[in-house]
């Protein structure tokens, strides 16, 4: 084989190695999920305090991720925080009285939305609102309550 062909073979191997490295970084190291999002439907919930919940936080059912938070804003009518989340289509049989609570993974971990399944025969669908909610537990409020109770019992 000529020198020119060898150069081409080496360059081919080089580019291939680069692509393999990219694939390792994308799939083994980071959470690359392709450009298209998994097909999903939107529901929302109103919380009076979301604590440290962030967009793209996971929505979990029994600890399994079944969706993502995609928007957090203040509802202009009620002044509550309106959290929109997309739930993957595989999980389209959530009863309409499912409740949502903002939980923390571990003591200091990130916050996520945990769903508790209800018992209704009707299922949540695109655009529905989750009525039963439990807001984030704010540590400062908890300490405040504890101190008030402590002071009361001391009298």
């Amino acid at each position, binding site marked *: 084989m000529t020198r020119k062909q060898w*150069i081409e073979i080496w*360059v081919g191997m*080089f*580019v291939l190695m680069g692509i393999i490295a990219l694939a390792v970084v*994308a799939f083994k*190291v980071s959470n690359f*999920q392709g450009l298209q999002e998994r097909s999903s439907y939107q529901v929302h919930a109103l919380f009076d305090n979301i604590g440290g919940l962030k967009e793209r936080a996971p929505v979990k059912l029994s600890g399994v991720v079944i969706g993502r938070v995609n928007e957090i804003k203040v509802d202009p009518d009620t002044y509550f925080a309106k959290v929109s989340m997309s739930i993957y289509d595989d999980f389209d049989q959530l009863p309409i009285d499912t409740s949502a609570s903002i939980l923390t993974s571990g003591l200091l971990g990130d916050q996520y939305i945990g769903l508790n399944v209800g018992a209704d025969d009707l299922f949540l669908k695109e655009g529905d609102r989750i009525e039963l909610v439990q807001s984030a537990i704010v540590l400062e409020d908890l300490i405040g309550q504890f101190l008030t109770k402590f002071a009361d019992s001391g009298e």
Partner: protein
Amino acid sequence: MKQPVLNALGHIGRQTLGILAQWGRAGLFLLHLLPALPYSVYRLELLIKQVYFTGVLSLPIILTAGLFVGMVLSLQGYNVLVDFNSEEAVGTMTALSLLRELGPVVAALLFAGRAGSAMTAEIGLMKSTEQLSALEMMAVDPRKFVFAPRFSATLIVMPLLSLMFIAMGILGGYMVAVGWLGVDEGAFWSQMHASVDWREDAVNGIIKSVAFGVLIAVIALFQGEDAVPTSEGVSGATTRTVVQSSLGILALDFVLTAVMF
């Protein structure tokens, strides 16, 4: 009495004007180079040759350096994290530092020293042996056939090299953490997978490496073209390429980090 002061002022002024003129020439050089860039696709064999010279021949140093950087990161991270009983996070730490900073930056620094300096020396020598003028005499535009393939090759090679650097670094980190220090293998990968974001960490790192590629290519090619056509001038230009691109990479890295993260 007045003369030394005036001389000193004149010296400062001359230096400043010299630097400004060089910046201006570099800007014009880039401006004239841009329209020639598509020609690197027409003459594919020139581009392939440059990818070989800049990329393939840089592989040994990039892969070895990546492996050792990853091993050191993992070792140092373990020593700190083990105090908090969270040595599994060493994978996350290695991967994040490599993807966000060390991969693009160290790969670019090595590339500037290994390939950028060679590019400047080659073009400087072409200029001093009047090969560039000879091409122009034959109505062949050296921008299209000398500069454009080298510029495009750098743009292609830089992100690939930094990805390989990162992959080797993570492999090195894995070997030290799991193989030697006894971190749990499952936790090592799953924690890394959970905390490294594709868009936020990986893509930003790749964007950085492309930006460094542009910087190195512009400096290396311009210094070669702008070199005084003597052996002394070429050696000075080579030194300037390494110094300026290294400083430029570190400064640009700060700016990009401030914008991205």
